[in-house]
């Protein structure tokens, strides 16, 4: 809320500078987002109040005139002026040579210089609001209030600071100047001056002219009104217009301006009806009927439905309660009698109505935050008083006050023990009281025992329990002034098994394998869902009711497309380098259609993708090669080192992968995912055709059923030397290397064995392959003799021959 400092000063004495004040307000919870300084460039000597004492025509120009100005202290000046609204007797702002002013033609602040205008020397000028930087108006000069004293520096008269407070939803009381003034008074330890609101009423009795009935007391707990007859509707006085403009409001006419002024002053929205446009002698507060329509003051025809609340006369609705008035009872220049409303409307209903209609107003903003109903008559009387002062007219005797809510003043017990329990420091009741009384709290007890009962100030709707008052004390005392200590209570018992351990192990392994982690958005589109066939045809992906992008309204059922999109985006930027990336994230399985408030199942997936050259392009020393299936497999094997469970790969074709280039991955015989080369039509779809894309797609849940982060299982290394033999074997192509190696490993003298070369070609018969396997012979008990190794060799060949019809290539 924009609050001019000059307005605040009407209610509270402020002796600190505006920056310090803004800081203090921010610290107690009223964040000051910005401060606008008006007139901070003004110089006291060169900008002063002057009076027009003579006005002559310019000899050489019809539109220019030559005013003679009284600058006070016997000083006079004669200048050239083009403003059409200049008149003798006006108090205006005179700028002497050297004044710093905004030049509308250049759009910059400039130093005023004397000028010869059509043959007449002009040393200085009469200023418009725009030139002073206090308004948009440049159509004429700014006319000051008649009471302004000539010679007074403008800085004293018009400079101001506007605080823009950003308020949390619990403080509707500070959506007002007085509410803010109470905070300042509490901070500075000063008092509040309550503005005048008593007025002389006329002979008419309000009850004779109108009555109010509330049909929905829940949504309208209180309705107050006053009647003022024979007012004159006109523009507001300059001071009122000025204050409204500085507060971000547009002046309309004196009646409407006063309702806005009092709303800003007290935080209570008001509305003025043209009394003579009302039909019948009754105001009715009721819910709208089905499809009832009302043209609101913004000239829009609104279709209303229950339980929206309207204000109506005996034949029609005349306002949308707590939100906006109706055109049919608008104040205009012909208006003479007005009915003024200050009521209290339910917060939730106001909010529901304004969001259904998309109509957010200053009034609805305040009501939906919850306003105390005690505020209505206070604001009503203040506005009635101002109308009698500024618009003439006679108020009827008495006010309407229809009040259905129980008269219940809530008392709250506060104790020193609770303050200590929450704040961690003992506070004496007198110190508590000294602070909260400045905020407007009242106490029941005379003296100050360790426990007292207090009532919150009537304008505060956010205080309902003792802890709220603890905050009141703490924030004014200053959070930073309260003590600080470390947690001293015992650390709660924690389960030994941390579910994130396995995942974080995998994440670290992926990074150590040279993979870059990515994180993408959790949403996807229908095309992608269909492309990946990721939802069973009888089910639907979870969709967002109010998506930000209508095409991407589904929660992803698989992580794979996200990683491919990321890969694609990076390939577009960089066609050279190899890409290795992965993501670990949640996917969302379809909701069961019969359980309407069940939660969807969320599962974590791990997807890795590699493509392109295996080394970076700046490599000068080696030739490069494209990454393939075995690079990806190597990464998967790397992941599972350090986790318990035995990894295995079984060839198995599936959608999304090239035929013959895909495998299922098992951990201890539990299927945990797939690995393979991306199908070419998907590579094309994602513009990834320049090199094969190999992906692995793992289910963290499946992994976690088997794997744990392994404790090291130490075994004594052999103290005896090893020797090795390389065996070139001819086998049928169907025999896989794993079968051969595991057969070799069965021999007791074999410590390790692995393939070192594979050959298919002219030197081996059709349908056969040559696999060279290295065998490491080693014993834990002794140095093996050549004889023992030869014997083992022969046994191995025999078993291979027997089991797979494998022979040695060079025997």
């Amino acid at each position, binding site marked *: 809320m924009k609050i001019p400092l000059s307005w605040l000063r009407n209610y509270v004495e402020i002796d600190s500078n505006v920056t310090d004040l803004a800081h203090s307000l921010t610290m107690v919870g009223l964040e000051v987002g910005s401060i606008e300084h008006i007139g901070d460039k003004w110089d006291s000597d060169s900008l002063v109040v002057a009076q027009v004492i003579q006005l002559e025509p310019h000899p050489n120009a019809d539109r220019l005139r030559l005013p003679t100005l009284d600058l006070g202290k016997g000083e006079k000046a004669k200048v050239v002026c083009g403003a059409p609204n200049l008149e003798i007797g006006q108090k205006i702002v005179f700028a002497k040579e050297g004044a710093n002013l905004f030049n509308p033609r250049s759009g910059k602040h400039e130093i005023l210089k004397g000028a010869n205008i059509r043959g007449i020397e002009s040393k200085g000028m009469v200023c418009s609001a725009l030139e002073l930087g206090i308004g948009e108006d440049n159509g004429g000069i700014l006319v000051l209030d008649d009471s302004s004293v000539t010679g007074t520096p403008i800085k004293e008269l018009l400079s101001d600071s506007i605080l823009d407070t950003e308020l949390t939803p619990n403080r509707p009381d500070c959506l007002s100047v007085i509410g803010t003034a109470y905070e300042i008074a509490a901070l500075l330890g000063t008092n509040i001056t309550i503005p005048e609101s008593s007025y002389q009423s006329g002979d008419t009795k309000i009850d004779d002219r109108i009555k109010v009935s509330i049909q929905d007391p829940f949504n309208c707990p209180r309705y107050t009104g006053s009647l003022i007859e024979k007012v004159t509707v006109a523009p507001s006085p300059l001071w009122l217009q000025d204050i409204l403009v500085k507060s971000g409001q547009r002046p309309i006419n004196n009646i409407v301006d006063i309702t806005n002024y009092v709303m800003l002053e007290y935080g209570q929205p008001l509305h003025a009806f043209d009394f003579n446009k009302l039909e019948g002698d009754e105001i009715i507060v009721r819910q709208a009927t089905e499809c009832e329509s009302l043209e609101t003051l913004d000239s829009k025809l609104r279709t209303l439905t229950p339980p929206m609340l309207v204000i109506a006369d005996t034949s029609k609705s005349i306002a949308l309660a707590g939100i906006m008035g109706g055109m049919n009872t608008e104040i205009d220049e012909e208006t003479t009698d007005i009915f003024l409303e200050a009521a209290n409307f339910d917060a939730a209903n106001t909010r529901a109505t304004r969001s259904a209609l998309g109509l957010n107003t200053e009034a609805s903003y305040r009501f939906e935050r919850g306003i105390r109903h005690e505020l209505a008559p206070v604001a009503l009387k203040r506005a009635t008083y101002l109308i009698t002062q500024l618009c003439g007219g006679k108020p009827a005797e008495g006010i309407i006050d229809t009040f259905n809510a129980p008269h219940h003043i809530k008392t709250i017990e506060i104790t020193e023990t609770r303050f200590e329990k929450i704040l*961690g420091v003992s506070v004496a009741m007198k110190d508590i009281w000294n602070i909260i009384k400045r905020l407007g709290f009242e106490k029941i007890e005379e003296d100050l025992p360790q426990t007292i009962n207090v009532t919150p100030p009537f304008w505060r709707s956010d205080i309902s329990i003792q802890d709220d008052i603890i905050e009141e004390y703490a924030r004014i005392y200053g959070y930073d002034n309260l003590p*600080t200590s470390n947690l001293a209570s015992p650390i709660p018992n924690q389960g030994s098994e941390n579910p994130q351990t396995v995942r974080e192990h995998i994440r670290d392994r992926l*990074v150590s394998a040279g993979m870059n982690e990515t*994180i993408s958005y959790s949403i996807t589109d229908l095309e992608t869902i269909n492309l990946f066939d990721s939802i069973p045809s009888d089910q639907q992906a979870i969709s967002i009711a109010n998506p930000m992008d209508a095409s991407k309204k589904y929660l992803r059922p698989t992580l794979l497309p996200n990683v491919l999109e990321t890969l694609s985006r990076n390939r577009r930027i960089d066609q050279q380098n190899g890409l290795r990336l992965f993501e670990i994230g949640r996917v969302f399985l379809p909701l069961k259609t019969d359980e309407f408030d069940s939660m969807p199942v969320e599962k974590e997936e791990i997807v890795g993708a590699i493509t392109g050259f295996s080394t970076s392009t700046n490599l000068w020393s080696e030739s490069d090669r494209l990454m393939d299936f075995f690079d990806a497999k190597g990464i998967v094997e790397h992941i599972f080192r350090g986790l318990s469970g035995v990894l295995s790969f079984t060839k198995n074709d599936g959608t999304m992968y090239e035929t013959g280039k895909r495998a299922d991955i098992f951990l201890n015989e539990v299927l945990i995912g797939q690995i393979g080369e991306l199908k070419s039509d998907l590579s094309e779809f994602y513009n990834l055709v320049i090199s094969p894309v190999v992906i692995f797609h793992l289910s963290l849940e499946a992994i976690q059923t088997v794997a744990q982060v392994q404790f090291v299982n130490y075994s004594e290394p052999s103290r005896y030397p090893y020797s090795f033999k390389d065996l070139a074997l001819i086998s049928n192509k169907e025999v896989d290397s794993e079968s051969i190696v595991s057969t070799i490993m069965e021999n007791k003298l074999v410590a390790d064995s692995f393939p070192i070369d594979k050959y298919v070609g002219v030197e081996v018969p059709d349908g056969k392959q040559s696999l060279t396997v290295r065998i490491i012979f080693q014993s834990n008990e002794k140095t093996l003799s050549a004889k023992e190794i030869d014997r083992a060799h022969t046994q191995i060949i025999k078993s291979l021959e027997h089991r797979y019809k494998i022979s040695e290539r060079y025997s």
Partner: protein
Amino acid sequence: MDQKAYIDIRTQIERKALSSLSQIGTLDDLESWRIDTLGRNGTVTGLLRGISDLPVGIRKEAGSQANSLKDVLTKKYEDHKADIENSDSIQTRNESDFLDVTLPGRNIALGSLHPTTAVVREICQVFESMGFQTIEGPEVELDIYNFQKLNIPEEHPARDMWNSLWIDRELADGSRPLLLRTHTSPMQIRTMESQPPPVRVVVPGKTYRYEATDATHEWQFCQIEGLAVDKDITFANLKGTLEEFARRIFGDKRKARFRCDFFPFVEPGAEVSIDCFKCGGNGCRVCSNTGWIEIMGAGMVHPKVLAGVGYDPEIYSGFAWGMGAERIAMLKYGIDDIRHFYSNDMKFLKQFS
């Protein structure tokens, strides 16, 4: 020729040979020297031949002298030859096999953690060292947990603080029960409902808001929630714990500042800022000239929230906080646009390896 004359000749030959040898720098010159000196018609060979012309009495001694000269010069010759060859080989190697130490080393593919992951880990580790346990929760939440049990009833204006993305599913009364969680705070409720006090947890996770994206706002981001509840937990503990956090993450000279703020599920509520590590509090672009940088919201758990999960608020109290992981990462690494985080540009990500 007597013995003396013979020795003079020998000495002459020796001097001449050694002085000329010292001038020789190439193998070709060395070869001519060898021929001149030790060759078949060389001076030393001539000296040896001349022994037979000497009187018998001195022949033995002269022979020994001549042979020793031959040995010395042969040794000199070999050494000199080795020297020349050696220097030749250094020169040759420098020409053909020179090590350009400024060439780049062989590349080792280096992976990287996403900066969000990195900062989440760092933050959770700080709290884990203070006895908090890291847990996680669902990203699709029930309205009850995301709002109602956190003291945010329907149609409460505080709901505007968390613009929600609702799941397209309606109950009979037209209300929507499910949404993408707008904060990690529902895990306060889920944790307390599932166990008796004491509680000390830290909860990282993705959160979502219906919010236009700009340099400082993302609709999807990661939040880190914290909660400590026990019999004697106070606002002083809140301050102590979060000040310690600020020092460990942003450096031990950092000061934390606490100001009053509002979140419906805490009372008293606070916003925590640190003094600007860039300008030291004088005001700069990073802190928008305030000298302070906001890092999280916090507060004492609201008695209604405690009562709602069956903890007696007269006995138990606690504090909670929530912070944006990306915001902390942006401050730590000096990233000025949050949109980098989920654009997944390798040029961005690889900087965190």
